């Protein structure tokens, strides 16, 4: 009997703890508007997608705006989950992640697009002879673990008159592009700005098929900066401050790629400096690209992609695209 009571108590306590952790997100302590502490969770390891943030930190843009930003790695938990539960104020995410997360009920909102146009594509060593999507047939695709990859590959192939059923899909997990493509993997989806540049450095010749060449309606914002609905409604001033300072940081990186690269290298010494410099040169002009302002997002792109996910059965609920993102903070930046 005693054991029952013990086990019951343990069960009760553990569930209650989880409940408490979930139901009341703990926001960082507010030390007044001066020097408010916020945390930002990266999506992955630091790279040139994040340069503007490091610049804003180094150059004191955040400090001037009255906030103190701590940059954190998410570990095994996704940045979206951390932001949604209030463990962090901001996070780096992607349009497809945000859409899927919102379909499952996570209240995350995209507040700025870091890079205006999708820089991803399907890369393969030239020896594999994959020059267009119809060449995917009969080959092996190394997936990074998302349900939507199959649909995307299929869509792209269909534009070229082929079908994904002829592709062998293998989940790569943590395996690195160069190691994987040495053996059984033929092509992988990569962001050119990082892995593509690395290939250039290593003198590995690649065939790169840009996703948006075949799927221009699905030009997804990758990456984006997200926050929680709660923070937007309860403390929009902090969000505004953050977005403004970050925009300044990216602006600097657009105009001064070399110096921005040095800032990133200094802040994250484990990175390969050659890669950072070359990547930054390639990426800087693309942050804002052809948009009127850095960070602006278009409704029709969010809607089109949400429809695509719904049609493909990757999400079961329709996502109201207008709730998934907002330009309010970008547009309020004082000129």
């Amino acid at each position: 009997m005693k054991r029952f009571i013990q086990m019951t108590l343990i069960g009760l306590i553990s569930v209650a703890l989880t409940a408490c952790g979930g139901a009341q997100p703990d926001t960082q302590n507010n030390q007044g508007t001066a020097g408010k502490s916020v945390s930002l969770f990266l999506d992955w390891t630091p790279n040139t997608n994040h340069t503007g943030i490091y610049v804003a930190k180094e150059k004191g843009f955040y400090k001037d705006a009255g906030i103190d930003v701590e940059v954190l790695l998410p570990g095994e938990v996704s940045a979206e989950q951390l932001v949604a539960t209030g463990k962090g104020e901001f996070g780096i995410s992607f349009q497809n992640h945000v859409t899927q997360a919102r379909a499952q009920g996570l209240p995350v909102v995209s507040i700025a697009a870091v890079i205006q146009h999708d820089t991803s594509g399907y890369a393969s060593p030239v020896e594999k002879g994959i020059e267009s999507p119809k060449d995917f047939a009969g080959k092996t695709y190394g997936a990074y673990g998302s349900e939507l990859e199959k649909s995307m590959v299929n869509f792209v192939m269909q534009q070229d008159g082929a079908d994904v059923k002829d592709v062998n899909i293998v989940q790569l997990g943590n395996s690195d592009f160069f190691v994987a493509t040495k053996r059984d993997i033929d092509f992988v989806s990569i962001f050119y700005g990082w892995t593509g540049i690395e290939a250039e450095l290593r003198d590995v010749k690649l065939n790169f098929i840009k996703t948006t060449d075949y799927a221009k309606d699905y030009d997804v914002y990758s990456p984006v900066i997200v926050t929680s609905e709660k923070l937007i409604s309860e403390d929009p001033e902090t969000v505004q401050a953050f977005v403004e300072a970050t925009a300044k940081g990216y602006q600097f990186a657009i105009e001064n790629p070399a110096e921005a690269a040095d800032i990133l290298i200094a802040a994250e010494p484990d990175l390969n400096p050659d890669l950072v410099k070359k990547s930054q040169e390639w990426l800087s002009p693309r942050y804002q690209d052809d948009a009127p302002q850095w960070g602006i997002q278009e409704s029709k792109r969010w809607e089109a992609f949400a429809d695509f996910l719904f049609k493909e059965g990757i999400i079961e609920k329709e996502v109201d695209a207008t709730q998934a993102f907002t330009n309010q903070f970008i547009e309020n930046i004082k000129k």
Partner: protein
Amino acid sequence: MRHKFFIHSWRPALAIMIFIGIWELSARIFAIETWILPAPSVIAAEMREVLPAFLPHMFSTIKLVLIGFTFGTTIGLIMGTLFHHFDRVRETVYPFLIISQNIPIIVLAPLLLIWFGLGDTPKMIIVAMTSFFPIAVATLSGLQQTDRELLHYMKMMGASKRQLFAKLELPHALPSIFSGIKISATYSVMTGVVAEWLGAQKGIGVFMTLASSSYRTPRVFVAIIMTMLLSLTFFAMIALLERLFIRWNREEKGA
């Protein structure tokens, strides 16, 4: 014997049911988000829906684990025996075995990938590598603890080394060996799932990755629960095998 099992298992069964009950109640009362901690009812609904899609993944993992585990057990038994008979082999190789158990899979993964590609082989190797060690240790330990009196009897009767091993040392070591096998079996399913994160087409690990990348927490729980059930089943099978092999022990302990 069978109804004894049911008599003994009502306690943990009841505890589990109470636990699930509390979980369900708390989820409703505290309105916990499904993507944080889904209620058992939500998980059950998800399981019903996703089971047909899940089964092929599960069978893939089962196959991988069984093959890897069998391989590992065989190596473990052979190694334990070799170590028992050849002191110098034991002294030389044993430290390397211990080191091998401490290499993180993350370090090993790219190497295995390069050598063996992305088929089932590297994953089976990982399962084999983690399962053989407890068995080698248990086998060696069991063989070294042969009853002195029985050993004396056999030697006085002029038993050859082979007779000594087959008729005395091995049967005497069986309880110890089975302990090792049970430990190994319990961890092998989880190891298989982790190994799938190296790179796989199908498997519970793949299913989990896809589910968590889509923030489908109920599905992740389905995978977790099924993994636990698989481990339990595996353990139970080994325990059953043990009962078959070690009949004499059973009655002594009044089990």
